[in-house]
């Protein structure tokens, strides 16, 4: 049944049905509506969880780590500066192989201070070992949480995940969504079965230090688990599709790409605008399509190369910037397509909540087809 609901509340509803035993979160705009809703659910005994009102994001993720290691399914949510404060803990959680699911209400990073949306925050954690998936709309955000718990807790993966959805554009937007019932979620997501846990009846040491003789193998194993996660995600996505008739099993998804000469690559809510722009360009006779990237970690390089066979020009929309280099997605797409003969151009767009419209997408397609790219798009002219 479809209900009109704010994105944050929809996420809180599905998190509740995923039955986390411990929630630790610290308020930060635009994540707050999620954690406020969960706090109310705990207060009303709708959700049987211990809600730890930590004094910082750093402690939020540290507390989640402890609770997860002790054997509980846990949840947190953050964004932007909060995620930056968690930086050290993020690497630690992945290294300790704790399957924590955390929502990222994507927001830009200061300075200058900005509470508005881009994807700099989660993308800056791309090397941390966390899986990263990005939702286009609130239904996808809801559904990806269930899939993320399944994938993370799979004993072939045992890694944490960011479920990313755009701040304000999705978190504060009311859309019709279908929230699976508790029975449906229980049927899809079994109770947490930790691979190992802190337990006096079986004393284990977690988080030992490794000398140069051992360190590299730990990093190798995390990398291997990242790659295995792609297949586990596909399987979890297929089973989700069987049960709910919504299919997220592919790490990338094409839109009107079949005979396209030019493809736009994008991630997150911007894909909705791009689809509308493509429809208009198609009506005008342009052979343009979209490749939406759902999964950024592990990076689906092969799937991207496959999907873009036959495309001559690619325009990547990056809502982040690796300062001094280029957009993070564009850089990786260029690597994925190297030697293919496809021209890849990167466009830094819509940082810090800057609007991007259909006409901008059309203009970017024109720029790419003229061979002009690897640039910021839509800057105020006085800085140029």
């Amino acid at each position: 049944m479809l209900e009109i609901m704010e994105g944050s509340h929809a996420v809180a509803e599905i998190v509740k049905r995923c039955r986390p035993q411990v929630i630790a979160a610290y308020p930060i705009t635009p994540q707050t509506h999620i954690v406020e809703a969960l706090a109310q659910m705990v207060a009303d005994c709708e959700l049987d969880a211990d809600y730890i009102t930590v004094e910082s994001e750093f402690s939020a993720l540290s507390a989640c780590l402890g609770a997860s290691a002790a054997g509980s399914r846990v949840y947190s949510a953050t964004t932007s500066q909060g995620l930056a404060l968690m930086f050290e803990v993020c690497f630690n959680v992945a290294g300790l192989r704790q399957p924590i699911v955390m929502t990222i209400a994507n927001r830009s990073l200061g300075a200058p201070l900005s509470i508005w949306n881009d994807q700099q925050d989660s993308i800056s954690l791309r090397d941390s070992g966390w899986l990263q998936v990005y939702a286009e709309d609130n239904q996808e955000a809801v559904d990806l949480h269930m899939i993320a718990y399944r994938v993370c807790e799979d004993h072939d993966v045992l890694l944490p995940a960011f479920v990313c959805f755009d701040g304000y554009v999705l978190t504060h937007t009311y859309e019709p969504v279908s929230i699976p019932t508790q029975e449906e979620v229980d049927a899809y997501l079994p109770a947490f079965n930790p691979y190992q846990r802190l337990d006096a009846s079986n004393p284990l040491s977690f988080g030992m230090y490794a000398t140069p003789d051992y360190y590299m193998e730990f990093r190798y194993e995390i990398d291997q688990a990242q790659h295995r996660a792609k297949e586990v995600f596909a399987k979890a996505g297929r089973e989700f599709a069987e049960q709910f008739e919504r299919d997220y099993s592919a790490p990338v998804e094409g839109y009107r790409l079949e005979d396209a000469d030019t493809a736009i690559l994008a991630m997150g809510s911007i894909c909705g605008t791009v689809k509308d722009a493509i429809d208009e360009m198609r009506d005008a006779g342009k052979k343009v399509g979209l490749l939406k990237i759902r999964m950024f970690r592990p990076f689906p390089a092969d799937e991207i190369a496959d999907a873009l066979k036959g495309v001559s020009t690619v325009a990547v929309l990056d809502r982040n910037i690796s300062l001094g280099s280029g957009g993070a997605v564009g850089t990786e797409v260029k690597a994925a397509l190297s030697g293919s003969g496809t021209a890849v151009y990167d466009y830094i767009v819509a940082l810090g909540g800057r609007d991007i419209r259909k006409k901008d997408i059309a203009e970017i397609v024109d720029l790419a087809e003229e061979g002009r790219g690897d640039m910021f798009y839509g800057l105020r002219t006085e800085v140029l």
Partner: protein
Amino acid sequence: MTGLPEGCDLFTPGHRACGGCGPALAARLLLKATGENVIVVNSTGCMEVFSTPYPETTWGVPWIHSLFENAAAVASGIEASLKKQGRSEKVVCICGDGATFDIGMLCISGAFERGHDITYVCYDNEAYMNTGIQRSGATPYAASTTTSPAGAFSPGNVRPKKDMPAILAAHGAPYVATASIAYPADFEKKVRRAINTPGPCYVQVHTPCCTGWGFESGETINMAKLAIETGLWVNYEMVNGVVEKAKKVKRKPVEEYLSRQKRFQHLFKPSHRDDLIAEIQKIADANAERFGTDIKPKEPIE
């Protein structure tokens, strides 16, 4: 359940601590006090490093090390998880003074304010020893460390020790205690009281470091004892913020403690720094006054 041989300590032999390591002794006594039904959270530092070089571990109880500064937050999560699961293990942090007085302060303050049922033990060796003897908020006045070196214009560390027990008592901690490895039974008793007191409890145990302080490794216990006998360390208990018991001593002059440690050698050579020694004596006198620890000589009978 631990698979350890009968009679073996839960903190097992074979670790890599220096001979005469005060913190290693504290860890052994800590586990004697807690027994098996405990989960230990250890901060980054000497203890973590000397006890768990992968793939070997010294710990016969479940143990986790995450980061330098987050032990109290990790413990908060473990405690919450155990509560939801209906499990009975006690949650104990063991962290050095740098992890406690300095970098971990935020996480500790949060955990104590929230009232988690955890015991936080700080092994206080009065500097960052693992990184090479740098000063921390626990370093005493006039101690020379690698980042507070004594020099022509410096007496060594220019600030007195931060009063962590008072800070945590001010958070409403039901039980706060100081202890010393020179008095093992007292330390164990305080740990047992802490883990059996609901809510966040704090025990700060003085653990001399022969390497960092500069004394012979056979002198560790003597050094801990002298700290108490001079009044520079006071063993006391605070219950709901009120000092209940403080160990009384017949005090010796602070010189007897200072002169035996390399970190205070600049007070004696090349010149005898009566001024600085007098300042340190004042700290000991103030401790004795504050905690009422002096054993007064009996009044002569008229």
